[in-house]
């Protein structure tokens, strides 16, 4: 494995913010650390970057133990949430800053920097000042600055949190594209599951400093392991008894006008129109359920009687 993290633990006071975290990542993959605020996800990233010293654990990148190294010695580069661009330096100066510490002449450095700027879509921005750039452009500079040093591991801390909704969609694609171009092993942290679903190869779901589940995006949605992943990822109708917890996602409930085999009668208590989809709050004799249908299909009125076709899945 290209990256192996094992037994990583970080303690603040008497609180284990990162509790015995272990995971692996293949070369060239994107891993997303997902979790609510305070789950310890950013702390893991800071431990990898060298900005926090974990109490115990091992981190091996390309067969090399790196926890004993200081941040400047690690073959890792971080793109910070607030980007951390140097306001007193131009775009190109920011981009090639890391090459100062490699055996590269300034001329070569500028050439390399310009190439990278072109890849991230900032050709000709060399002499701009940082405060003249938009948020998206700043993020591209931060990304270029990290890529230019050819790190073994690229860390992105909440890369989409400072962008507006439209720009976020663009940057998700951009980052994915650039990551594939460089085939660079990447870990990013987010609290937004949509970010995780659309970009990641594997998702590490964190809660209270512990890993709850490591899976591909599809698996984590379809096969949540335990109640936290079920509650946190997507929405679901949950039925828990003493022995087991069962669930069904709202879009898996099919609505029919007439009774069929294995359907359950229900009445639509409330309808919420959400653009592409319509959400129904339905009461049946067993439970209140939420169902989702596309708004281009038949739309039911509140008070209508419908017949629900669905199957509960047991969580693992």
């Amino acid at each position, binding site marked *: 494995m290209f990256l192996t993290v094992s037994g990583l633990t970080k303690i603040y006071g008497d609180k284990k913010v990162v509790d015995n975290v272990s995971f692996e990542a293949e070369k060239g993959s994107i891993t997303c650390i997902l979790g609510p605020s305070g789950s310890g996800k950013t702390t893991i990233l800071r431990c990898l970057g060298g900005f926090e010293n974990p109490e115990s654990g091992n981190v091996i990148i390309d067969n090399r133990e790196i926890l004993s190294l*200081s*941040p*400047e010695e690690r073959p890792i580069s971080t793109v910070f949430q607030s980007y951390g661009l*140097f306001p*007193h330096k131009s775009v190109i100066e920011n981009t090639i*800053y890391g090459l100062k*510490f490699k055996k590269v002449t300034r001329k070569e450095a500028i050439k390399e920097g310009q190439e990278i700027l072109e890849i991230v879509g900032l050709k000709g921005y060399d002499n701009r000042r940082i405060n003249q750039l938009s948020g998206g452009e700043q993020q591209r500079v931060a990304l270029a600055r990290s890529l230019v040093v050819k790190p073994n591991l690229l860390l992105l801390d909440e890369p989409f949190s400072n962008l507006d909704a439209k720009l976020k969609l663009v940057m998700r694609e951009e980052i994915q594209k650039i990551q594939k171009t460089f085939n660079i092993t990447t870990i990013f942290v987010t609290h937004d599951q949509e970010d995780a679903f659309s970009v990641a190869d594997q998702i590490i779901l964190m809660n209270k400093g512990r890993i709850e589940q490591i899976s591909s995006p599809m698996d984590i949605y379809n096969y949540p392991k335990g109640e936290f992943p079920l509650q946190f990822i997507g929405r679901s109708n949950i039925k828990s008894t003493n022995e087991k917890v069962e669930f069904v996602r709202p879009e898996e409930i099919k609505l029919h006008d007439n009774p069929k085999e294995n359907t359950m009668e229900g009445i639509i208590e409330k309808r919420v129109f959400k653009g592409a989809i319509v959400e129904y709050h339905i009461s049946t004799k067993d439970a209140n359920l939420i169902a989702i249908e596309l708004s281009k299909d038949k739309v039911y009125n509140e008070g209508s009687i419908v017949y629900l076709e669905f199957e509960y899945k047991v969580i693992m």
Partner: protein
Amino acid sequence: MRKKLLDSLDKILMITIILSVLIFILYPFISVFITSLMENGRIDLSYFSFVKDEAYLIKNSITTGIYSTILSTIFSIMIAVYFYISTDRVKKIITAILMLTIISPPFVTSLSYIRLFGRRGFITYGLLGLSISPYGQLGIVLMQSLGFTSMNAILLMGYLKQIDKTLIESARSLGAKTTDIIKDIILPLMKPSIIVVMLLSFIRSLADFSTPRIIGGAFNVLATEAYLSIIAKGDIRRAATISVILFIPAIIVFILYMTKFQSLAMSQHGTNSGEGISIKRDGYLYNLMKTGAIFFLVWILIQYASIIMSAFTDIYKGKMYFTLNHFRESKINVLDTFPRTIFVALIAGIASSVIGLILEYYGFIRNYKSMKIIDFIATMPYIVPGTFFGIGYILAFNKPPLELTGTLLIVILNVTFRQLPFASKVGYSTLTQINRDTINSVKDLGGHDCHVIKDIILPLSKSGLYISFVNGFTSTMTTIGSIIFLIYPKQKLATMVMFDVIESGKYGVGSVIAFLIILVCLMVNGLYYLLLSRKEKKKDVSYSIGLN
């Protein structure tokens, strides 16, 4: 009916503030200019001829200013950078040592310099057996640098605290070592604040007359000449003229500061990240900064130790012994002076903080355009030499209807309005933190502007008022320049007594008074920090309650 009453109360308050700024700041200013530039109602520049006749004074002032600026800027950068990188414990020690110099009279270091390096100095004579004259330009430059460095370092430290920590982490993540971080990130980012610090040092040096007076010997500068013009020659017009000349660089710096660096000064009151940075404490540049900083801090400590030592000891036949004689000797000075000084400092501290806050309330919250000018005038005492402000008061208030010379009131007014710039700056930053909607709610619920002041502004500005009170008190306890001409022999304040006894060579008594001034300031500042830390504890409690 009730509204009318409150309306007029509001108006009276505002007019009082405006009038007091005009009368007690602007009018003395104008008086200095009129006195120096006019004779019998006509413009007369004859007094400026001394610029040609005694050009050496200008040269002395400028060279001293340049040397002190360079030295104090270099040392303060070293201290600030070392402070920024060092551990919390070292930070506490540095802060404590710097505070010590802030709460002592400006010329206290000169006193200990003479005690350490003078003809009979502990070090030069006592340890090395040398008898060197400490007087002259070198002494002035060294002592001014010592004083300015602390102020500059505190300013720079405050600025560094605001640097976004991720800048440093980014640099590390890209491979930068400590030396690179200092060279590429910290120092370039400090540049605007370094320029501010240099400008302030330069005009402070020009304005300082007490250090050159005590330690300059035959070396005179413009500021001492202005002082001597009044004290020795009784020529107030000459003093006013010199003050006008000293005012020119000050106002240039001030305008530069207002236009170019205002944003910098303002942002200093903003939020700070609080936590320090943790980078490796190694590399030649770090070690250079550390060496410079430690050298300076040890030097300050030795100087202060020597003050305490000379307060409690005397030398007889070459041997030093413990004694309380100096305390006994200074009893006559102290018993009478200290209560008066503390009284004046208390009033100045309280009055300036309240006036500053209300002034900013009308300017910032109520947003009256005319208050912008008043605010500008209120800032002027910050930048002009203290002697200028003092001479202005003599000239402005020596005849009816405002004949105040010789009273204690003129002293109180002078120190109060001299502290107004700081108080109004603090007031402004406090007010920016009050939510506009909170204020609007009072009015929405039927309250009057007077209620806004009473129920919102004053209670929410408590900590700001504390800060400007402590600053006003401390500055008044340690000031000398602006009041030295205003005080009649019978009502001297502590710093002046100290200045007098040092001038007449009674260093032991001088040390005792210095020691006592520091002690009083230390107590007031200590009380403030005690209140502050108790408040913070309370805050923590309410915070955790809020969370649960």
